[in-house]
């Protein structure tokens, strides 16, 4: 067993060491950690302004996300107990079944720590105001750790059961429908009692009956009573979740099911998926288990052929908007609806743009030879490579504009201002993503990536602010009826120019890049 513990600790250490392998990556990782640490210190130093209504929105959102992840992980067909490199060593090595299962459980704990850190960082960055105080942050951190731990153990046990019991998958689907469907129905009936409006998250969060609902309700109960400082109840919900984890863990550890062959085969399959995900190959990933339609398409000439190929692939997979993007968009639109202001909606959609516009499609192409080989100018090729990101930007922002008209009775002019303002940010974000790739040379470090993108946006805002202040003080007073529209157009133009400059600066990546190794 010692060798398995050694393997897990070395693997984890290897990931951390990888971030500090190169000086630049080390500096940027440290900066990113300082940034997150700074946010935490900010929470400690700022006067605690715990707001139950704000906190309830974060808690309900988190519960919703976990309901989704829990359901998805249990229903997903792309599962494995271990990765391929582990499989050849752990499954084929001189280890007892209990040692192998113990290794899987240790893997779950490691995975849980990463998952908790990632979720907590996101919450800290995007919902700091709603978290309110450092105490609340640690409460959320602990609740995520406990719940995702239970979730991972359940997923591992579910995998083994699926391999050993013939009709298990039907039983699971029925059980899951009852558990998740029941929770959603229960929550819906509570919400309907007082009518769905901006107070709904608070109503759900504070409902004592809902807290008794197994698993998801316990999580919500833990957050609610933690926030209220009712520690006896906190202990109770912690006990319920921990007990569930312990029971499932015990059952898993003592299973008699022979899972070796299936685990070996699935490890190979999952490795393909992991490799594709690591190389940013999300397009192929999305299509892996999908039945593709037969579609004919024409290819444009030169660099634009890459875009034609992208469109043809989208048409074949019938995936014009990514499900993940749609979920983020719906989630943040719902939050804005419940917080009830247009300003917060603009902020929310900015966050959606920040999260969804990433460099996946670009990374995918940069790891293939075609973009380098195509005999066309590098700048033109780079612009074409950015079209998928721009496409996502247009879809999300236009949808946001339309929703702003529906939810907040915006005028067409107002919605146009909304869309143009977001384009101003999104274009810099896109250019920032390209520049980040150039700087990091494909070394994926999500924290650092986000930090550089934020830095670029902050720097890019300076000329816009200077010009807008200048305009306001000279020719366009603040009370002018066209102030908003003029300012949004000016910002869009400045940011377009800046973005083009950054893209031009980065386009020599297509004359040879260390990403293609």
């Amino acid at each position, binding site marked *: 067993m010692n060798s398995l513990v050694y393997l897990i600790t070395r693997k984890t250490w290897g990931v951390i060491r990888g971030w500090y392998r190169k000086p630049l990556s080390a500096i940027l990782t440290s900066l990113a950690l300082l940034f997150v640490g700074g946010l935490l210190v900010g929470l400690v130093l700022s006067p605690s302004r715990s707001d139950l209504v704000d906190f309830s929105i974060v808690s309900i959102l988190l519960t919703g996300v976990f309901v989704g992840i829990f359901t998805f992980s249990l229903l997903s067909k792309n599962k494995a107990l271990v990765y391929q490199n582990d499989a050849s060593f752990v499954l084929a090595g001189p280890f007892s079944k209990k040692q192998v299962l113990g290794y899987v459980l240790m893997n779950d704990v490691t995975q849980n720590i990463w998952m908790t850190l990632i979720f907590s960082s996101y919450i800290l960055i995007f919902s700091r105001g709603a978290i309110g105080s450092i105490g609340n942050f640690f409460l959320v951190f602990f609740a995520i750790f406990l719940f995702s731990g239970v979730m991972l153990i359940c997923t591992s046990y579910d995998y083994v059961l699926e391999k050993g019991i013939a009709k298990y998958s039907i039983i699971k689907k029925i059980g899951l429908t009852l558990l998740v469907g029941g929770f959603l129905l229960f929550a819906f009936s509570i919400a309907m009692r007082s009518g769905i409006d901006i107070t709904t998250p608070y109503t759900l969060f504070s409902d004592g009956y809902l807290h008794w609902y197994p698993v998801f309700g316990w999580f919500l109960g833990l957050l609610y009573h933690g926030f209220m400082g009712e520690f006896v109840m906190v202990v109770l919900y912690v006990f319920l979740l921990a007990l569930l984890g312990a029971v499932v863990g015990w059952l898993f550890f003592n299973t008699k099911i022979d899972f070796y062959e299936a685990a070996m085969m699935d490890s190979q399959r999952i490795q393909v998926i992991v490799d594709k995900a690591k190389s940013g190959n999300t397009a192929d990933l999305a*299509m892996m288990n999908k039945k593709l339609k037969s579609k004919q398409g024409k*290819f444009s000439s*030169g660099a634009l052929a890459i875009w034609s190929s992208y469109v043809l692939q989208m048409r074949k997979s019938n995936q014009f908007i990514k499900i993940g993007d749609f979920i983020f968009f719906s989630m943040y639109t719902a939050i804005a609806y419940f917080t009830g202001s247009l300003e917060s909606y603009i902020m929310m959609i900015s966050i959606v743009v920040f999260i969804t516009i990433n460099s996946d499609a670009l990374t995918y192409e940069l790891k293939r030879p075609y973009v380098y080989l195509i005999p*066309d100018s590098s700048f033109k090729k780079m612009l074409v490579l950015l079209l998928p990101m721009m496409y996502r930007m247009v879809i999300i922002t236009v949808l946001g504009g339309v929703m702003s008209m529906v939810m907040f009775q915006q005028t067409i002019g107002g919605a146009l201002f909304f869309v143009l303002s977001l384009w101003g940010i999104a274009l810099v974000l896109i250019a920032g993503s390209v520049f980040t790739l150039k700087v990091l040379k494909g070394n994926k470090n999500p924290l650092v990536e986000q930090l550089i993108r934020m830095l670029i946006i902050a720097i890019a805002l300076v000329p816009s602010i200077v010009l807008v202040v200048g305009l306001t003080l000279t020719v366009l007073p603040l009370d002018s009826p066209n102030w908003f529209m003029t300012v949004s157009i000016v910002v869009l133009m400045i940011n377009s120019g800046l973005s083009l400059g950054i893209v031009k600066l980065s386009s020599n990546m297509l004359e040879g890049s260390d990403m*293609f190794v």
Partner: protein
Amino acid sequence: MIVVNKISKKYGKVLAVDNVSLQAQPGKITVLLGPNGAGKSTTIKSIAGLLNFDGDIYVNDYKNISVEAKRSFGYVSEVPMLYDALTVKEHLRFVLKSYKKEEDLEKIESLLKQFNLADHQDKLAKELSKGMSQKLSFLCALIIEPQALLVDEPLLGLDPQAIEQMLQTLVELKNNGVSILLSTHIIDMIQDFYDEAYIMDQGKIVTHIIKEEDTLPLKTIFFEQVGKIL
């Protein structure tokens, strides 16, 4: 013609290619040989403009990263990198159009027939076997009628018949005046086909062999120079 002049390439602190110079003449098959990690693939990728490097590379008198040079050479990667959701035929159409050439369907059909892929032309890349993917990758380089061809480990994953077919094609291209530079591990297979060979070890060229001048078999020279098992 491919001219590589004193190129070096570092991955972090590791010097993968160290001051390498070589030439691949038109109408000749030039082979890059070497043990694992010798720098063969890095050299070929640098010539193809996929990696940045120090030094100069020219393809048909143009800098390798220029549009003019790119128009004139084809590249076959070690691992076929295809678009999962595009069919065999769509890959070839895509390459033709991206090189601003006419979609010559007859040429596509004829190449597919020649490489026994005609029956698979509407198959998606993700449905192809490893060997078929490798063939398609090769065809993507051939369809543009290159004047120079860079081939990185072309024989991996192919069955004996496909290896023979690929080597015959390389000979045909050579006879048509194409400059061919290929890296391989399989010395026995290329003994009859190569014209010149460069043996690499630890990032450096250790020997340049011209077949007409050297009577010893390539394998013997290789082991004499490198002293390692491939």
